[in-house]
């Protein structure tokens, strides 16, 4: 896929194949969404239903391997990635409601299996939900209605590895009665960073609190994201802050599914 470098934080531009309704399409629901935030995945299913995208949920799926990969435990990560590749081998499209997990599959499988085109090929077929909606299907209006002030945080992997910057914004701006407020310093990391959040908790919290200050400064009642992992961290901090605990973290699919 050709890459064009534009200004800071506007990295790769991907060339997506054309989607045909006969393509075999699966959803990959990241482990923490599956277990902790199932409503985000349910929303995604309902959105895709409405658009007539036929999907499967291959039951053998577990995790994309990112936690171990980012912690240096590559042998363990490889075991899990092999399972992932086997589970999704038959599918032409794998839609995932997380930027970070998508980046793991599409970009980082190559680091684990540089000589295995089958596995990296599966990884390359993974697309993030908003990317799929906007870039592949060309849909920006989903008929949603959500009468709240919303600000948006885009996770760093989605932003810088996949180049997701405008897609979620376009989708949110087309939601009826939704007031979109841009997040100041939106390019900054929220400080989650996977195992970074527990390896360096003080650093991670300090970064998270700075992010929460920015979120609160927008006056939004909801902070949306394409990454539930960032939201878990941001939400966890917001919840313990008496002034900010009213701000609700929501996956973008949940908002797009409101009517």
């Amino acid at each position, binding site marked *: 896929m050709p890459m064009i470098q534009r200004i800071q934080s506007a990295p790769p531009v991907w060339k997506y194949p054309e989607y045909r309704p006969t393509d075999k399409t699966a959803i990959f629901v990241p482990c923490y969404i599956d*277990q902790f935030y199932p409503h985000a995945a349910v929303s995604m299913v309902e959105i895709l239903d409405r658009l007539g995208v036929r999907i499967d949920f291959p039951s053998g799926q577990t995790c994309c391997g990112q936690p171990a990969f980012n912690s240096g435990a590559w042998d363990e990560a490889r075991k899990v990635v092999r399972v992932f590749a086997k589970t999704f081998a038959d599918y032409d499209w794998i839609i995932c409601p997380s930027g970070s997990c998508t980046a793991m599959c599409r970009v980082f499988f190559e680091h684990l299996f540089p000589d295995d085109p089958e596995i990296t090929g599966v990884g390359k077929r993974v697309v993030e939900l908003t990317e799929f909606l906007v870039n592949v299907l060309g849909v920006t209006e989903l008929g949603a209605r959500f009468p709240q002030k919303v600000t948006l945080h885009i996770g*760093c992997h989605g932003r810088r590895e996949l180049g997701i910057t405008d897609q979620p914004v376009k989708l949110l701006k087309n939601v009826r009665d939704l007031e979109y407020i841009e997040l100041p310093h939106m390019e*900054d990391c929220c400080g989650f960073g996977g195992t*970074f959040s527990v390896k360096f908790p003080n650093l991670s*919290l300090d970064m998270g609190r700075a992010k929460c200050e920015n979120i609160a400064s927008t006056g939004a009642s909801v902070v949306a994201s394409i990454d539930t992992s960032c939201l878990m961290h941001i939400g966890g901090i917001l919840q313990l802050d008496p002034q900010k605990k009213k701000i609700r973290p929501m996956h973008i699919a949940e908002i797009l599914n409101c009517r």
Partner: protein
Amino acid sequence: MSESKLHPQEGFPFQKKEMHDLCVCGGSPATAASARRSNDAYTKMLERTPEFQQWRENAHAVKRFAVQHLDQLLVQFEQNLQKKGIEVLWAADAEEANRLVLEIAKKHDVKKVVKSKSLVSEELQLNKAFRANGIESVETDLGEFIIQLAGQRPTHVVIPALHLTAEQIGRLFEEKLGEKFTAVHEELTAIARKHLRNHFLTADMGVSGINFGFADTGSFTVIENEGNAGLSTSTPPVHVALMGIEKVIPSVRYLPYFLSVLPRSATDQKLTTYTHIFHGPAPGRKMYVVLIDNGRTNVLEDPFTQNTLYCIRCGACMNSCPVYHRVGGWAYGWIYPGPIGAVLNPHLCGMKDAGKLPFASSLCEKCAHVCPVKINLPEQLVHLRNISARTPGSPADSVYQKLLWRTWSFMNVRAGRFAFFMGLIRLGTRFARFVPKPLRILEFGAWTKGRAVPTPKGQAFRNWWKKNRKNTQSESKK
């Protein structure tokens, strides 16, 4: 590498179990403020300089070629330097480099040395070696001058005294130089200038670094803003230039690429005030170039890590780094802070000492998008994490970590196991808030330090799917 290269006072704070007091290592919040200011300036520069991305490509391509052909270029460089009457010396490590420089000093009966800013001289701890041999050495770069007076180490590759405020510097000058207190920038500069001028005139030898060496002409370049490098190298009769072996590029013709990206990335300048190109000693004077390895060939060995040698020391990565903003330069324990330090230090100091540095990043990847020579810093970081986890004696090579990831992969290779283990964790989260603080240990303790535990509602998605939906396309049964 038997002796640790670490600075004895600071060590590697990242190595320590916890980073209890943020910003303490950096000395002050000035670090975050200044680094952020530099990064904002850089971002604005990008917006008004659309050509910059092409320049980055060019600089990257030249460096890639140079590093891949380093062996040939270095030989060519040496030959051409010698043709110009410059004496060339080679040093495998810091110790050898110091010995060579001291020998030169002895030969010319040197009592006082003036130094312009050089990071490789920091690697060597050259000032310490001079002092031990009774030679006075004076740092002449304003930042380095301040740092030397304070008895500290630089916290940034371009702005060594980034962590100090003007007020702190005023107090320092008051205490060490007996000057009247001031916090006005121009007045502080004038004080330093007054004190330095005399040193330039009385020094017997000048030491500088090298920004780029040109293999085809046997000349080299030093860029600076203050004029101190010009004075340090031209006033004393002997000039010793120290250079890491990766600084050679094929031709002086490529210098403009780097002059376009380096000052812009470092200090948001179109050009630095001075760009010196040295073509050999003036009549009756001596010029030496010391080529220093000090661990660089270790980096060269692995084709993947090679591109960390492209670094031109501009500091853009640390200016953009949220971790650096918070911990400052000393936390990285050695000369190079920030993302490039987290990548270089483990190579140059060894995994045992610096094996935890690559983990001190949230992998936000901002650094990769600002690097003017396009070093893939985040990818280097994850690769180093892997190497660190496999290196015996490295802090990441712990039984606990191994066990943790074994367990993780065990539960993730079968969907049934995954559902079972995750079910346990879900159950656990319900009781998490009843666990008293002292019992909150390991990852759980770290998470709950300032974050609420997620409380899952309803059933897991896979159960919802089983109840409500069916896979209609053939599912892989391999």
